[in-house]
């Protein structure tokens, strides 16, 4: 059935684990499930809330059979006030995980997200903390059209007070999710649906990955490729399939951004391409390019470049949907273009 078809993007298994670690291999979805379950087991203040959070589909399987179903609260179609409910609970000592099956629904809650959640800690001079994680699933669907296909990571990163993270593999998903739950700041946690069936080694025990620190996914000399989420997978495929000597950086966090990691890489390679599966104008790719142009222009051998969605909404027809999304081949082509000086 078509709705399950999104899962089948098979890809090279990413493996960011040190050799010593437990090498159990599980899916991204199961890594998320484990992280959520452990977070809830570990801390009774952690609870989950959202439309369909408690239904039989378990948020695409990521919340099935949790140990504490009594701390999973389904809501009506009331995204705005429900986000305020999560904020109120956080202020009163809980650590809510809010869930949106599609990021597009978050636009209904922008008052709460951008006016309240992002600013509350600053307005109160830190006298209260706002430990909320807002999980949201993104990704091109099955001809879903413009209202069910956005990414919006850059938009959230625009608001001071919000942290934004986009994991790219199971190991990352678990470690970043637990870091997000642990953090005393609001974190927007964006999961690409096409990563859900991807597998990788994930330790059983709880662990966190550092907030605001990216990673070098693979080293390279000719160009720095910055990518997050599904774009990391596509970039890796581009690199291996087309045997490119580029350094792939996954900043993980759109905010706070690991500027040093990117600048150090550009210092070495002299070239930058940012892949962002999101709208181009005033977006995350623009931020990374501007930052490098401001702070690292002396390293650049060729102009910075960005690769994003085209500057239009997502059309519905499958043919156009495909044209709309970047992919490994298109990424490789862009890299070749830069290396060939065009």
């Amino acid at each position, binding site marked *: *059935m*078509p*709705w399950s078809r999104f899962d089948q993007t098979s890809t090279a298994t990413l493996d960011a684990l040190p050799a010593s670690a437990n090498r159990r291999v599980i899916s991204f979805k199961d890594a998320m499930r484990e992280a959520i379950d452990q977070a809830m087991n570990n801390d009774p203040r952690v609870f989950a809330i959202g439309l*369909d959070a408690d*239904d*039989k*589909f378990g948020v695409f399987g990521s919340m099935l059979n949790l140990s504490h179903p009594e701390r999973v609260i*389904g809501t*009506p*179609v*009331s995204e*705005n*006030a429900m986000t305020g409910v999560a904020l109120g609970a956080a202020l009163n000592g809980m650590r809510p995980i809010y869930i949106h099956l599609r990021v*597009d*629904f978050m636009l*209904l809650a922008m008052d709460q997200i951008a006016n309240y959640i992002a600013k509350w800690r600053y307005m109160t001079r830190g006298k209260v903390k706002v430990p909320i994680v807002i999980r949201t699933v993104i990704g091109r*669907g*099955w*001809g*879903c*059209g*413009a*209202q*069910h296909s956005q990414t919006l990571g850059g938009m959230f990163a625009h608001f001071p007070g919000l942290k934004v993270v986009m994991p790219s593999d199971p190991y990352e998903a678990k470690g970043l999710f637990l870091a997000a739950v642990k953090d005393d700041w609001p974190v927007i946690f964006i999961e690409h649906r096409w990563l859900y069936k991807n597998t990788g080694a994930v330790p059983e025990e709880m662990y966190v990955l550092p907030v605001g620190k990216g990673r070098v996914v693979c080293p390279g000399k000719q160009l720095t490729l910055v990518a997050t989420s599904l774009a990391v997978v596509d970039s890796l495929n581009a690199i291996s399939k087309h045997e490119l000597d580029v350094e792939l950086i996954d900043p993980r966090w759109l905010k706070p951004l690991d500027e040093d990691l990117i600048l150090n890489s550009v210092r070495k390679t002299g070239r930058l391409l940012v892949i962002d599966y999101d709208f181009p104008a005033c977006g995350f790719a623009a931020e990374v390019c501007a930052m490098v142009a401001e702070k690292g222009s002396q390293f650049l051998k060729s102009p910075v470049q960005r690769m994003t969605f*085209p*500057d*239009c909404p997502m*059309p*519905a*027809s*499958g*043919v*156009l*949907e495909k*044209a*709309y999304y970047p992919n490994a081949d298109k990424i490789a082509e862009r890299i070749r273009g830069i290396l060939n000086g065009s």
Partner: protein
Amino acid sequence: MVGDTANLTRELGLRLLRKLREIRQFEERIIPLYPTDVMVTPVHLHIGQEAVPVGVCDHLRPKDLLFFGHRTHGPALAKGLDMNRLMAELFGRTTGCANSFGGSMHLVDPDNGMLGSSALVGGGIALGVGAALAAKLEKRDQFCVSWFGDGAVDSGAFWESLNFAALKAVPVMFVCEDNGLSNVMEKKDHMFADITEVAGHFMEVWRADGTDVHSVWSAAGQALRHIRESGKPAFLWCRTKRWMKHQGVETDDLECNPVDREKDCPIKKLEKAMKARNLASDKELDEITQGIEAQLNAALEFAKKSPFPTEDLLMTEV
């Protein structure tokens, strides 16, 4: 609830029946095709709920506007969208009503009073209010209808829309197609209050049996008359039943949603009433079915033969 088919005429009955069948047969055509992936778009079928769009839209002229949501096929066909263009849209072809840019959830047909639909629940309610405000400002002879499900009632946009329409005497008709479900959530789990009681604090309310097209038709007629005469909004609530899963082509299996495909069927109900009054023969009814089947065959041909869009269209009309 409004009901009573005593005044059902042959002409009306046949007209309503044809539309009910159009929707039913259209949706049933999709069922076996969908798993073959010829339609790359989510579908929210209208089977079992046909009485609501048909009963309402029979009163509407092409210039009257209908704003609906994700569950589009029923309202769109009832309002007059050409089957070919709906089918082609589902097939993602350029001959679709939105030239393949909309998909199942975003249908458009200005000539028949459909100015677009939204996949996001709730917000669309306000669009009908705005359209009716326009009609009022311009003193037009035009009805505008906001169409939504029981789930949409949960949204703040519902509340805000009701209040504004009442405050400003906006001549809009709210139609709540209440199938008792918001996806897999039963109504009692998603909306605490009785929708019609709340709406009653803002405007006149009509209640209809949404599995009975004549009940809907009568209530809608009364509500529209009230709007025309008073210049005020009206609320039409239709309790109906969803036969299929929220999305896709499988039969629903929720315990809280038992369906009796005999007693709950708007088509069977109407056929029975017509035959009881000798308003139509079996043969006539069969001819309607066959006629629609032929139309559907043609629509499928049309869709399949139509071209896919090309990449260069992506950034046009932006």
